[in-house]
């Protein structure tokens, strides 16, 4: 039961509660031709007064106004609605409509759309920045965001269904898919889960991620969020579902796979060999970032046999003066890096720059000189941190930062055996994980060689002629591979 309903039970006059807000305004005017009195009720902060003054008011004052239905004839605004239901009042008024009541037509309510849209101008993508390619990013308005997507997919098959989520925030959530391509099961799952959400307010699309996820206890994000309209358009045409949430500059994509989190959209703008190399580098960076400190701890604590004899001297000399065992040394440095990152993220940009200096130079060198950590480990930890920053999706890079700590713990407990143990648990978890019921680890497991074309490597565009099989799309073929690219000699062309 909404607050409005509760209020209605006690008092039938819907104005009493609204009048408590100072930006609620209610005035009356008298029509010059019919002497009919009509009232305006609106929130001055939600409507564009210019529309009211220039379009609605002159017509209402000077044209013949007998019933509410006359508004539709005389007011030059497309969105004019007449309703008998008083429960519409709340929804309309708060969506930027002006409520008109007529003395001669008391049981009905007229609404004129006069929304004031305060939209931030389009800006460059900040998280998924790309050197080449489109520079547009989503903003906080659902209308603007849908516009950006529709511009890229101007087809009637692009269906956008809207929902309202949140008993207080009344957030508009749009579910987008392309009819005839996207598996309807996926669309239905999203819609069903959205309607089942029972929450008071939605602050950002991240809320939706958590509420829609198959397993919200997992470290891994199961919906991909992106701020790039080009990426959403591309992924929609691949046969996935996009979820646009009002008030959030991040659009969600489902179902998603683990591999997708390591592909930057810029990969598609680069030569496929270069892009594949970068993807491999990213995958290597992630593995390196998770495993480097645990392996250091395991090797130095248990498995000195594994260390090449030429490296042994370097390691032993660098560690000689250090009073801490390898695990404490590693934890100390890892926590330092986490502190630096957290401090850098919380501080205003201008102050944040000093953090880099303090952290990088002062703490790094000083802790080595003070004999708290070995310089070899310092390099490993710094490289590991660097590796975790290469992940294009911010949420995934956070996950990777956290993942190394259990590995570190088990490396200390059982050495390399512990790392393997941790790895087994991680693999088991990833294998069980699903996104909208589709396997999260595809195409690695279940193995789909055909889908490998766009996973760890990015194959040439003309080779990506079919949609991912795990999505079970209605139309698995994207285009004719043979006709995709034809390089004819210009002379041949003219000879025809």
């Amino acid at each position: 039961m909404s607050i409005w309903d509760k209020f209605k039970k006690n008092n039938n006059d819907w104005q009493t509660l609204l009048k408590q807000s100072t930006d609620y305004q209610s005035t009356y005017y008298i029509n010059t031709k019919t002497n009919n009195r009509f009232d305006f009720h609106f929130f001055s902060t939600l409507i564009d007064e210019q529309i009211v003054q220039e379009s609605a008011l002159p017509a209402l004052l000077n044209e013949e106004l007998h019933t509410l239905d006359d508004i539709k004839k005389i007011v030059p605004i497309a969105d004019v609605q007449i309703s008998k239901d008083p429960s519409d009042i709340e929804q309309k008024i708060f969506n930027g409509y002006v409520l008109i009541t007529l003395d001669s037509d008391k049981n009905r309510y007229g609404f004129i759309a006069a929304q004031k849209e305060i939209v931030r101008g389009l800006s460059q993508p900040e998280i998924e920045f790309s050197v080449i390619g489109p520079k547009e990013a989503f903003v906080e308005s659902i209308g603007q965001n849908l516009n950006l997507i529709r511009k890229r997919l101007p087809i009637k098959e692009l269906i956008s269904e809207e929902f309202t989520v949140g008993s207080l925030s009344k957030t508009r959530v749009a579910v987008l898919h392309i009819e005839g391509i996207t598996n309807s099961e996926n669309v239905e799952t999203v819609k069903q889960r959205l309607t089942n959400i029972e929450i008071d307010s939605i602050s950002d699309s991240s809320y939706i991620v958590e509420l829609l996820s198959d397993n919200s206890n997992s470290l891994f994000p199961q919906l991909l969020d992106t701020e790039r309209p080009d990426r959403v358009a591309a992924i929609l045409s691949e046969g996935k579902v996009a979820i646009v949430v009002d008030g959030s500059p991040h659009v969600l994509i489902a179902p998603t796979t683990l591999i997708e989190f390591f592909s930057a959209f810029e990969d598609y703008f680069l030569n496929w060999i270069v892009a594949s190399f970068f993807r491999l580098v990213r995958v290597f960076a992630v593995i390196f970032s998770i495993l480097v400190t645990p392996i250091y701890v395991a090797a130095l604590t248990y498995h000195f046999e594994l260390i090449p004899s030429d490296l042994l001297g370097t390691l032993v000399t660098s560690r000689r003066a250090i009073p801490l065992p390898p695990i404490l040394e590693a934890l100390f440095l890892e926590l330092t890096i986490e502190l630096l990152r957290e401090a850098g993220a919380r501080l205003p940009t201008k102050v944040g720059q000093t953090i880099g200096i303090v952290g990088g130079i002062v703490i790094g060198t000083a802790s080595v000189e003070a004999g708290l950590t070995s310089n070899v480990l310092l390099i490993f930890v710094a490289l590991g941190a660097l590796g975790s920053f290469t992940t294009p999706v911010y949420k995934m890079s956070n996950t990777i930062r956290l993942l190394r700590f259990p590995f570190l713990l088990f490396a200390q407990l059982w050495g390399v055996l512990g790392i393997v143990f941790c790895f087994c648990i991680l693999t088991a978890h990833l294998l069980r994980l699903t996104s909208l019921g589709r396997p999260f680890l595809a195409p690695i497991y279940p193995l789909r060689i055909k889908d490998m074309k766009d996973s760890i490597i990015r194959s040439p565009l003309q080779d990506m002629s079919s949609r991912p099989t795990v999505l079970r799309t209605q139309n698995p073929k994207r285009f004719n591979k043979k006709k995709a690219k034809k390089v004819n000699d210009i002379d041949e062309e003219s000879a025809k």
Partner: protein
Amino acid sequence: MKKRIVILLIAASICLTGCVEKKIVDEINIAIAAGFDSGDEKDKFKTTFLMQDFMKDMSVQNRTITTEGNLRREVLSDAHKQSPAPVVVGGMRLTLYEKSLAETGLGEYVDTYQRDASIGTRIYFATTEGKTEDALKADYGLQGNGSFISDMIEHNIRQGDVPKTNLAVFLHDYYQQGKDVYLPHLKKIDDQNIDIAGLMLFKDAKALFVLPSEKLFYFKLLVDQYSKGDFTVTLDNSEKASIHSIISKHKFKIEKKDPTHLTINIKVKGNIKEYTGHSLSPSRIKEISKELENKVEKECYELVEKFKEENIDPVGFGAFYKTKIRHFDFEKWKESYGDLTVDVNCDAAILETGAIY
């Protein structure tokens, strides 16, 4: 159920931590080499462990611990008593045996090496002319004695004329019937120098005699691939050519009619590095390779004859015969080993004679 598993895992991870022995790398004494000498008393032997102390400037200081005992594990626990940190053998790269000890048989000494999982199978074994303690106590270079000697053996195996030997090869040959083991033989020259004096040949794991280093190349031709080595050929007109071999192959062939006759085909490919004559015409090159073939054939034949004379089989003829003849009888083989007739054929090819003619 799930909860129970989680609790069990946590309990296991806490309780089992004590089960794994921690060996923090700077809190242990890693023995990089060990040496076995015969002891002052009978049935006892001396063991020398060579440790590395890493200096600030990355140089290595040698430190040795010598203990005496009659069990190898006992020796290790004695070594702990002389060391500031526990001595571990997992980082071992080299083990030396004194010649007089090797003559009594190496079998039991190698046994500990194959039982200790922490010791890699790629460590090198060698015999020494004098006491191993002296060989390990010298000062050969900045990288430390252990690394010095094992690096010396390693590069001579890879790029030189020492046939491949390490723990894995040694154990393989040791347990294989029809093949005798061999190890590099080291000789300490003075306190700064040591060299590979030859190859110690064994008979039933007992050291027998040393093959001098001049013969090593020909021996490697018989037992190994990629024999690399330089040797000189003197032509009829007393001109000399130095040839560097880069690749070699050997093939044994048993005559079908007469199994006691064995043909060894050896292929050598090499470059001419030096020539004292005027110019190398194709006919001259042919002459050189012919001369080379003759030399290889002669030397290899002599080696085999020598082995027959000593009744040892380091080339592994017996092991080869076993793979070729069904129901091979080793007792019979041992008796008839002396009757084996060997024919060596060499096919030499000169690949390169230099850039400038």
